[in-house]
């Protein structure tokens, strides 16, 4: 039987207040702990981002910078992140590689992109190379809400690459040295022979000069003696002046020609081995090929003739000239070796290496054709792989064509098409963009790259 309902309700209400107060305390404590955990987690992630040696940049969908890590701020030469936040990424990213379109279409970005070479521009206007990776930032519903860019500073790597390329070039020069010594030795020999002939000729002419001097002196004193006239006549007779008059000019001409040959070889070698500048420079491709033909002459002259068909109106292009010389050398030496395999053991038989240059719209084309035995079908898809070689142990490193691919495709955004058959030999067709910085040519290049990839496959299938 309930006796005092109000009393019981009151007691219950008082207890409820106590419980609710305890709940509020518990919730407050829980909230505090959660906030502490959140703060701790935030600090933890911030310290990870702070300690990152890579540049981290988060972009909003429209391409403006939402946040950057300290490393990015410092490497780009800024004092504070506020100087970068809100700016378009193009303020710091060199847009030559065409990333701009990606930033404007993050929704269309199919998955992340990894390690694409690009460069950043510092506050002072300095440019430095980076390997750029990016992925779309998505919200809980999967809608894109930005782009996360991670960039690895590769300045030091670039310097090492430069040094490696130079080392590879010096290695090539070392391998060519014996041949070049031979090339220089031939003109040096006939320069020596002619100089010795001139020395002897001068000895023979010396008496004629001496007697002529005496005759001039006696004539000036007013007394010409028969003896002095006889002396000249004998000296002229002994010296065989008609012979010397004919041979001395020839010897001088041949000597000068020899000196010019040596000079051209040395000049070509000097230009070929020049370490070059760090960035791209304007260069004449015809001239680079000419120099390479000269320095490699001993590699091909016993097995092939080189025929060149250079476009006379070829414009200078912006490129890594030293690296392209290395490309031409590798292709010429490979062509010579391919021909050597065919003509070996056949007397007086040689092949032909044709090197041509031409303009095709916005592209500069260089073709290197040989009359060798072609590339066997089963290895055609491997020829650009690093360390792949068919040459005997000790004669090939497998770096030649890998380097060609790296320099033409990666460094110059060019293309390579290889056509090969046992009957026709092998043709390497290189295409380099004449004006690589033009945005318009970018899309065309991509289209052409696709076309050429298809063509490449077709060519390989022949």
């Amino acid at each position: 039987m309930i006796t005092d309902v109000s009393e019981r309700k009151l007691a219950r209400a008082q207890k409820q207040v106590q419980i609710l107060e305890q709940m509020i305390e518990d919730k407050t404590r829980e909230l505090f702990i959660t906030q502490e955990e959140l703060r701790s987690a935030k600090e933890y992630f911030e310290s990870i981002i702070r300690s990152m040696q890579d540049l981290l940049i988060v972009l909003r969908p429209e391409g403006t910078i939402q946040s950057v890590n300290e490393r990015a701020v410092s490497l780009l030469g800024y004092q504070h992140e506020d100087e970068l936040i809100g700016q378009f990424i193009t303020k710091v990213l060199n847009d030559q590689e065409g990333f701009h379109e990606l930033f404007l279409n993050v929704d269309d970005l199919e998955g992340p992109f990894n390690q694409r070479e690009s460069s950043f521009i510092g506050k002072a206007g300095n440019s430095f190379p980076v390997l750029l990776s990016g992925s779309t930032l998505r919200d809980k519903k999967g809608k894109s809400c930005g782009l996360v860019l991670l960039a690895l500073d590769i300045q030091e790597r670039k310097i090492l690459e430069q040094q490696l390329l130079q080392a590879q070039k010096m290695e090539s020069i070392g391998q060519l040295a014996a041949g070049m010594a031979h090339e220089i030795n031939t003109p040096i020999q006939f320069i020596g022979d002619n100089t010795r002939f001139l020395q002897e000729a001068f000895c023979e002419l010396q008496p004629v000069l001496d007697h002529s001097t005496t005759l001039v002196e006696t004539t000036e004193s007013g007394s010409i003696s028969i003896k002095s006239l006889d002396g000249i006549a004998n000296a002229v007779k002994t010296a065989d002046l008609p012979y010397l008059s004919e041979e001395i000019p020839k010897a001088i001409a041949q000597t000068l020609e020899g000196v010019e040959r040596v000079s051209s070889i040395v000049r070509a070698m000097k230009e070929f081995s020049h370490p070059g500048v760090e960035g791209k420079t304007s260069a004449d491709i015809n001239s680079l090929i000419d120099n390479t033909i000269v320095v490699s002459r001993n590699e091909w002259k016993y097995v092939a003739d080189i025929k060149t068909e250079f476009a006379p109106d070829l414009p200078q292009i912006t490129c890594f000239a030293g690296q392209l010389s290395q490309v031409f050398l590798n292709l010429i030496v490979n062509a010579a070796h391919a021909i050597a395999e065919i003509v070996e053991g056949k007397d007086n038989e040689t092949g032909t290496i044709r090197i041509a240059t031409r303009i095709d719209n916005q592209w500069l084309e260089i073709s290197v054709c040989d009359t060798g035995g072609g590339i066997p079908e089963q290895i055609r898809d491997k020829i650009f792989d690093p360390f792949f070689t068919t040459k005997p142990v000790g004669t090939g490193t497998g770096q030649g064509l890998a380097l060609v691919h790296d320099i033409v495709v990666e460094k110059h955004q060019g293309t390579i098409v290889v056509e090969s058959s046992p009957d026709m030999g092998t043709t390497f067709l290189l295409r380099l963009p004449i004006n690589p910085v033009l945005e318009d040519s970018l899309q065309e290049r991509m289209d052409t790259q696709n076309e050429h990839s298809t063509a490449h496959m077709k060519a390989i299938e022949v």
Partner: protein
Amino acid sequence: MKGVVFNLFEQFISENWSEEIYEQILEECSLETAEPFVGPGTYPDADFLALVVKATETVGVELPVAIRAFGKFCFPKLAEVFPHFVQTHQHPKDFLKTIDSVIHVEVRKLFKDAETPEFRYEDPGPQQLVLIYKSPRKLYEFAEGLLEGVGEYFQSPIQYTRTVRVENEQEVAIFELTFSEAAVCVS
């Protein structure tokens, strides 16, 4: 089950019968919970069931009838405490479609241990709605009472039928609702 339901049940008994009756029910019930129920607290479902069963015995009402009546009683009370969930809608259909996506989300924000039922919807026509209810508590009559409360609140009676089926080895109730022609659905 959340304490707010226990508190509402106390109000339901007190207002429809008397405070003395509720005290009697409480005293005669053997509950796992010793302390008074408070709104934010979470209590065993068995305690609620024990109270409801004892109440039906005490006041002489059948269990399904009592639970349905309790549901109908709860809705206006809840709407009074949480008006912003209800007042933004002109039509019961619009409101009902927010139960799972808005109201239960907010409940879980406040009470992380809340075990809210799951609602799915099918929308066959402007004056119709199929509401698929899934909960291990199977409080179908309570849901029906709430639907009746919703209809009264919006002054637009809701006709409903209930069928039960098994989905993935779990029982679900399908409420096919028909709204009054007079009400204009804005969704």
